[in-house]
């Protein structure tokens, strides 16, 4: 194990981001803030409809200093992380089972596909009613929302294990556990990480949906509060925090990929959206 991993890999990935992008990204943010300020200034919209960057910035510091932002962020982050973890764990375990047993797949796949037809927003109120108050219902919503993409990617990943390598393991008389550990896990990992990337972004949405429906803390709750009090700046602060959280999670998944998928051929340019393979 490489103990120096986060720093080393982060440096490497930064180097991979082209210099151009290092200039372009801050510039584009600057341009965005400038346009926002212009619209705010010249449209004549009142602050409770469109606050300016400056007001949001001040509100942000206010929320940071009174500790409320950190408290609510922490709650949402906990829901997202626990939900993502549980959802990914159960989905990949079930995915493995489905990949191994066509019978189980035939029996379960109609339900799994049907479960995707249910809009999570529609059943969120039910979950909030059924589960005890607190984080449980939000964690469950997060887990449900990440479940499907990770399940499917596990399935695809395991199916993509080359037959020749399976033959190799058989010819070496590897047992089931060895085949799992030495072949199936590493071979399926790239696709599994793809599912995790999607899952990380979806989990944040899941947590906010749950908090909208019924919560007394979290960034989704903060948005509701801001709206109710015509404190639109607070809504902006919460929204930006959510964006930042989703980006950070996405970044963590990419760092994990860089660490565990070092063997993959990569272009020296890492695209932010899609890895060029």
């Amino acid at each position, binding site marked *: 194990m490489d103990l120096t991993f986060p720093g080393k890999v982060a440096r490497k990935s930064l180097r991979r981001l082209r210099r151009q992008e290092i200039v372009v990204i801050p510039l584009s943010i600057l341009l965005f803030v400038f346009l926002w300020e212009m619209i705010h200034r010249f449209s004549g919209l009142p602050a409770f409809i469109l606050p300016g960057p400056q007001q949001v910035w001040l509100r942000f510091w206010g929320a940071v200093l009174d500790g409320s932002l950190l408290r609510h962020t922490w709650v949402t982050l906990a829901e997202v992380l626990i939900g993502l973890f549980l959802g990914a764990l159960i989905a990949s375990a079930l995915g493995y089972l489905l990949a191994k047993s066509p019978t189980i797949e035939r029996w379960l796949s109609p339900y799994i596909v049907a479960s995707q037809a249910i809009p999570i927003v529609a059943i969120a109120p039910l979950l909030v009613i059924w589960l005890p108050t607190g984080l449980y219902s939000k964690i469950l919503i997060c887990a449900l929302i990440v479940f499907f993409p990770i399940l499917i990617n596990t399935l695809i990943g395991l199916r993509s294990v080359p037959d020749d*390598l399976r*033959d*190799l393991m058989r*010819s*070496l008389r590897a047992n089931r556990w060895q085949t799992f550990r030495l*072949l199936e896990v590493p071979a399926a990992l790239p696709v599994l990480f793809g599912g995790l990337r999607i899952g990380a972004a979806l989990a944040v949405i899941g947590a906010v949906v749950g908090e909208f429906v019924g919560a007394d803390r979290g960034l989704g709750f903060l948005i509701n509060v801001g709206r109710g009090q015509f404190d639109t700046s607070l809504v902006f602060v919460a929204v930006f925090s959510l964006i930042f959280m989703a980006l950070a999670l996405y970044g963590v998944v990419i760092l994990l990929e860089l660490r565990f998928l070092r063997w*993959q051929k990569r272009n020296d340019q890492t695209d932010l959206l899609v890895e060029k393979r």
Partner: protein
Amino acid sequence: MNSSPETNTEVLLARNLSTVFPGPDGILRVLNKLTFRIREGEFLAVLGPSGCGKSTLLRLMAGLLRPTSGEILYRGLPIREPLPDTGIVFQKANLMPWRTVWENIFLPLEVAGITPQESKERVRQMIELVGLEGFENTLPRDLSGGMAQRVAIARALINNASLLLLDEPFGSLDALTREQMEFELLRIWQAHRITAVLVTHSISEAILLADRILVLTPRPAQIQLDLEVNLPRPRQQNLRYTPEFAYLASQLHTAILERI
């Protein structure tokens, strides 16, 4: 060293070996009542047109497949599953892309429950044998086709295999690398003197390497020709340009073309 196999002990025996696969219209007869034997220390080449069932035959010997009828025995016992002393080299190098050269060669030992510490010397020997010193930590993506196949050969031999099965190992290499690898294989085999079965569709490769050549007919495959290659060993690169070589090649060529 003498060219003939040291003993006449029979290692492998196939009797009325047949294989049938379910095909698009009914059944696909692949192998049709093959009977042959392989002697200890012999290098046998199986030659035949593409899709004639050569690889199926190899999979039967590897224990990856069971015959539909007939039997295949290794040292007197039927092959029902992969045997511990068989090493396989696949068509493509078939390396694990996430493992380095060292780790790929170490894989069979790891599966056998041997620790990396205990394996160091053995892996080092194999790396030296196939001439990959200095590439221990290289990933497969950075290896050329020939180097990757060297790793595959080392991996097949590291378990002290006494039966080496090669399934068109050099089919995907360019002509020059292929010639070079054929001689590498010859050198390695001469150092180990184990029983080897090479599946190939290259006539010159078969003559160059083998003590004996089995020519299969198109599907359903039968043995069309069982030819002894009485060329002296160790064999040299210029063997290709001798009259004896040409004579064998033309014999094989005629046999194969006759049935297509």
